């Protein structure tokens, strides 16, 4: 079944056309991640799905029901905000209960659901605390808890981890993945973070300037991007683009991921090391080629290259991608 169906959704704020003909189908239990540069319309799209903004045109269907004119509360969704948006004057329990109480749920049912959510999120010791008395990670979990207790068909997350520090972010990422597995609900997740997108998504939706550029599984997008934008956007360090001139079709651009380059004295590309980043687990070389292009090489493990060193780089032709001058993928 389709959890969510967007048909020709458009959204304008006055003059500004922010979302352009969005079509998307999200399957049941699917985990969808929206990525794209800042301002491309990710949050807006999420808010249109939530019903916090009305689409200018187009149709939103959730679980087979047309909700285009339905208020947020009746759409069977939950949303977790970047700022958590916890009710500061209510304790953790109150935060989770408010929506249910409003809906007139039975007291017993409310208590039960809160208990279950608190257990799942290890929030039991904090039920009586207010948001101000919680750490960032705990607040994050409360926000998720508030979403869970409503038992929605569709979860919406708008950059839920961006306020957390690195370590916590990693841990919470794993928790969210588990949650998805346990709850069996569909999720739509907006993020800026490569790693989150790659690791959490069943499918990634790449947005750019209010349009969907490509939709697909993380590996499909990584290995088989539809265009130069998607290719460059995914992967860190990002893909090297070389004027293909000497190596391929004239006018075309050749894309090589940094990890597909290898050091070899006789390599096709000759250059000198401009900068070395030693990350412990791997090493990035920034190499300035003869053609004055900068190429990033990613090597696994620790390596002894030094700045200024002349090196040659080789790569597997089979693993390169070509793009035309407009950035469209040229398929062999």
């Amino acid at each position, binding site marked *: 079944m389709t959890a969510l169906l967007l048909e020709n959704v458009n959204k304008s704020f006055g003059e500004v056309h922010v979302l352009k003909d969005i079509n998307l189908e999200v399957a049941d239990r699917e985990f969808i991640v929206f990525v794209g540069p800042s301002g491309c319309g990710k949050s807006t799209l999420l*808010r249109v799905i*939530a*019903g*916090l903004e009305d689409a200018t045109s187009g149709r939103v269907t959730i679980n087979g029901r047309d909700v285009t004119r339905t*208020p*947020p*509360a*009746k759409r069977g*969704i*939950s*949303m977790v*905000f*970047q*700022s*958590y*948006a*916890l*009710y*500061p*004057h209510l304790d953790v329990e109150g935060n989770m209960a*408010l*929506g249910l109480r*409003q*809906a007139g749920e039975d007291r017993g049912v409310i208590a039960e659901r809160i208990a279950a959510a608190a257990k799942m999120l290890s929030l039991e010791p904090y039920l009586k605390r207010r948001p101000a008395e919680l750490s960032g990670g705990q607040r994050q979990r409360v926000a998720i808890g*508030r979403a869970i207790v*409503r038992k929605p068909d569709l979860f919406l997350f708008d950059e839920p981890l961006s306020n957390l520090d690195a370590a916590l972010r990693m841990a919470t990422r794993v928790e969210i993945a588990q949650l998805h597995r346990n709850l069996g609900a569909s999720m739509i997740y907006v993020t800026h973070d490569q790693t989150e997108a790659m690791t959490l998504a069943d499918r990634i939706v790449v947005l750019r300037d209010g349009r969907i550029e490509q939709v697909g599984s993380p590996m499909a997008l990584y290995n088989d991007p539809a265009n130069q934008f998607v290719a460059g956007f995914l992967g860190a360090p990002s893909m090297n683009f070389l004027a293909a001139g000497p190596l391929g079709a004239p006018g075309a651009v050749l894309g090589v991921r940094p990890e597909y380059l290898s050091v070899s004295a006789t390599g096709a590309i000759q250059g000198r090391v401009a900068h070395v980043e030693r990350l412990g687990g791997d090493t990035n070389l920034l190499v300035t080629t003869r053609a004055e292009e900068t190429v990033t090489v990613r090597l696994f493990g620790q390596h002894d290259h030094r700045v200024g060193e002349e090196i040659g780089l080789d790569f597997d032709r089979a693993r390169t991608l070509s793009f035309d001058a407009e950035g469209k993928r040229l398929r062999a």
Partner: protein
Amino acid sequence: MHKARHNPLNSLAAHAALLTWTAVALFPVVVILVNSFKTRKAIFREPLALPDADSFSLVGYQTVLKQGDFFLYFQNSMIVTVVSLFFVLLFGAMAAFALSEYRFRGNTLMGLYLALGIMIPIRIGTVAILDLMVQTGLVNTLWALILVYTAQGLPLAVFILSEFMRQVSDDLKNAGRIDGLSEYTIFFRLVLPLVRPAMATVAVFNMIPIWNDLWFPLILAPGEATKTLTLGSQVFIGQFVTDWNAVLSALSLAILPVLILYVVFSRQLIRGITSGAVK
């Protein structure tokens, strides 16, 4: 501590400046309070002296307290002040919420309309207001006063509260919407509790003119049963009055309640005002 950064001389100067102004601010109040406990002669001979065994006298307070039913007046003032504040805050907050939260045609115009009131002294509308109260049969009831003070307090309340409400996070209100809260519940359960400090600010700013007003009680509710404290004590502040014991005592008595009300609201006021929204 902080030796590299802070010069003790500066802090001394700061305290000196603040102490000076504090003295200036409190001096007149102290003069009134101190002299209200003295005999008439002592008030004139040595206005700055503290009352001693000789000059101590409560005659002023006795005069004042036997002049009228001060307890009743006090109660009336309390009711009028508190109920008016309640309506100013409630209606003002509701209107401020509408103006700050919803984009609708005429929003700016409505904001301007609600601000007109601070530009014309409401006193000149007295006759029309009295007419209105006569027609509605509210003359000589506390409701007449409450209505006038509510109307009079609304412009400033809307102005201040809408500034504050703009600062309540949109995400929070949206979270409420997704949780299924109605717009009313969002207002009462989420927004109101969060702007409490601003409400205290508005309360303090409105409380003073309401409590101290002489004009409307005189015109709208001069009856014995509805007299306010300020009106009740004006007997001593009239033109033909030389009984300074009574005057000073009445003034001292009039300072106290506002002072107490102020203390009640002031912690919230500081918080409200320092949360930086009246900018």
